[in-house]
């Protein structure tokens, strides 16, 4: 072992996983500041970005300023001890790590005018940030995204519950697009997380994609993120976004959108778009506001050079 650092935080799920003392543990992906470890059937993330999650161990940003990839390789063994984990040449002390145990987010109970205002502000924000790119935006330029809106989101917003129940429908987005976590997966993570946070009074069934669908259609890390999100385990940024909707906290909502927007090329924006699509379609179901049509107008209309009238005859550009 060449290096040792002390973890600053450890997520609840991480603790559970490590306590189980899984025998099969290895490095799945290595980046400069992040490691993705497979521990049994679970994923443990080690990062120095200060982005906590239930399955993340964070180490201080300024400690050991050497990129992980310079001394850790994919496939390296992960050894789990009582108060430490060893990953290749790195030992991470866990003894003094602060636990990250976020409270369960309260279910969304109502979607009132404030929620609608938050939704519109959020949509405008992410569109303006998407617009920075002069080239095609990965998700918005894809025909399968258009198909998803057509087959799932739009019918759902008009009352068709079957549209979101058919798990086969989600296959068209899984693994779609470029990036470590493909754009389609990010979008779905947001969309499904929002729907699954709704109170029972909305009478909307939980969306749970089986492992078989997840792991056979996208990469392991992305599938794991989706799997955790379906079970209410989110990283801190996504947690804040969903929590701000549940609490109807407009300031926190905007701050979390902006914070999430920094993630990847469009990864954070895609997650938020998924959340907002869910937001719009459920408001439409409850209040018949036609927000979904407008959202489609703004997104597809801007990037495909089409207006929604061409996609859904009769819809008006907002």
């Amino acid at each position: 072992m060449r290096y040792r650092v002390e973890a600053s935080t450890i997520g609840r799920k991480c603790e559970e996983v490590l306590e189980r003392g899984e025998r099969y543990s290895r490095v799945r992906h290595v980046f400069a500041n992040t490691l993705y470890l497979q521990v049994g059937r679970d994923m443990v993330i080690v990062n120095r970005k200060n982005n906590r999650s239930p399955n993340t161990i964070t180490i201080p940003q300024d400690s050991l300023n050497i990129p992980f990839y310079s001394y850790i390789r994919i496939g390296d063994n992960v050894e789990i001890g009582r108060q430490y984990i060893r990953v290749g040449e790195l030992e991470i002390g866990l003894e003094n790590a602060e636990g990250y145990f976020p409270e369960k987010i309260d279910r969304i109970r109502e979607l009132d005018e404030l929620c609608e205002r938050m939704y519109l502000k959020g949509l405008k924000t992410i569109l303006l940030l998407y617009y920075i790119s002069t080239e095609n935006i990965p998700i918005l330029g894809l025909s399968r995204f258009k198909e998803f809106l057509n087959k799932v989101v739009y019918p759902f917003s008009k009352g068709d519950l079957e549209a979101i129940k058919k798990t086969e429908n989600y296959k068209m987005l899984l693994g779609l697009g470029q990036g470590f976590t493909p754009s389609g997966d990010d979008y779905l993570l947001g969309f499904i997380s929002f729907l699954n946070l709704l109170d029972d009074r909305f009478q909307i069934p939980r969306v749970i994609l089986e492992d078989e669908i997840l792991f056979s259609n996208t990469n392991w890390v992305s599938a794991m993120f989706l799997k955790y999100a379906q079970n209410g385990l989110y990283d801190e940024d996504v947690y804040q976004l969903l929590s701000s909707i549940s609490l109807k906290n407009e300031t926190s909502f905007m701050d979390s959108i902006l914070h999430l927007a920094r993630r990847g090329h469009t990864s954070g924006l895609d997650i938020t778009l998924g959340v907002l699509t869910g937001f719009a379609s459920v408001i439409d179901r409850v209040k018949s506001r036609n927000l979904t049509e407008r959202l489609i107008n703004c997104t597809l209309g801007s990037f495909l050079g089409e207006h929604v009238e061409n996609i859904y005859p009769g819809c008006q550009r907002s």
Partner: protein
Amino acid sequence: MSSVKDEIEKANKEAVERMMDSEPVWVDVGIAREKLPEMKDYLLLHAGPPITWEKASGPMRGAILGAILYEEWADTPEEAEKLVTSGQVVLEPTHIHNAVGPMAGIISPRMPVYEVYDKKYGNKTYSNFNEGIGKVLRYGAYSKEVIDRLRWIESTVAPILQATIREIVKDRGGISLKSIIAQALQMGDDCHNRYNAATSLLLKEVTPYMIDSGFDKQTIREVYSFLAGNNFTTLNLGMAAAKAMTLAAHKIKYSTIVTVMSRNGTETGIWVSGLGNRWFTAAAPIPKGVWFPGFSESDANPDLGDSSITETAGFGGFAMAAAPAIVSWVGGTVQTAIEITNKMYEITYAKHRYFQIPYLNFQGTPTGVDIRKVLKTGIVPTINTGIAHKEAGIGQIGAGIVSFPFEVFKKAFEAFIQEYEI
């Protein structure tokens, strides 16, 4: 019908093209009262967003008092303060007068100003004269020595420079400041806190005309020594040039490009092209600095001055990679300077067509801060700056590096969302 995306792209392209194509030329020297269209007695212009006496910091207050004494509206600092608190002396931001001033940035009616004319777009911009470093009005000092120097600038420096520039204008239309800045960036200046090359280039152009200006030899020599002995002589002209460049990019509908970044010692403020003259403000941060002997961060005032107009126009701190020697003045390492420039590319619209950095293979400087990119990346503009003592009357205590608060860009972004139908 074009989409909002297209409108923004078109507007930003136009704004940054205009910023780069602007042709600021130094054309005259005159008294502020006569040159600035809205200037009047008992009006003082100051750097940054609007400020009241109650909220003004020590150096800003010191500079206001000093300007009142210089104008002879009062005989003592106490009388001067009464004039401001009673509302007889009015405070307005320089920027709404198309003017700029470093640090406190005070421009009073009788102060001499440089007039810069944008040959391409027809705008006129103004800046006051640079007094040197140390105990000077712009850092809040207002002792007799400071006021006497201002009067000497008014009575001796300004007339010679006026005669000089008027001859140059007759001869060849004025002095192209864009050309001086472009050359100086390739000679080791950043043209915010390092103007060594630019000042030499300027003096090379003006000195023959100064000699022929008709003033006596001794006076010319004194003025020359004053100008040559202060590497910040060209700062104020560079700032007026930057103001002309950014003014050319201002008020373009849908543009998300920043056209003013400034500080008044209490607050930091920005303007965004598509949002007109609306200020978006947040508390001004304290720079990380290199301190003059005997001073430390605890003595420092929050950031101050209009000089960040240079970064707004695509040079200054954004071009620090062009000026490795600047780190001895503002701190950090050469690597820091390069990193700052490289980071600024992530939040700007274009690489400048005319301002280039030799070390980066003559890449254009990062130009045109896009508020959306600041929000998307979380990276904020970083500038270099002088640091004033927090108490009035002491003056400059160091120089350093400071970043604009994220909050101002967030406020501007939210205003943009409200302003335009997305």
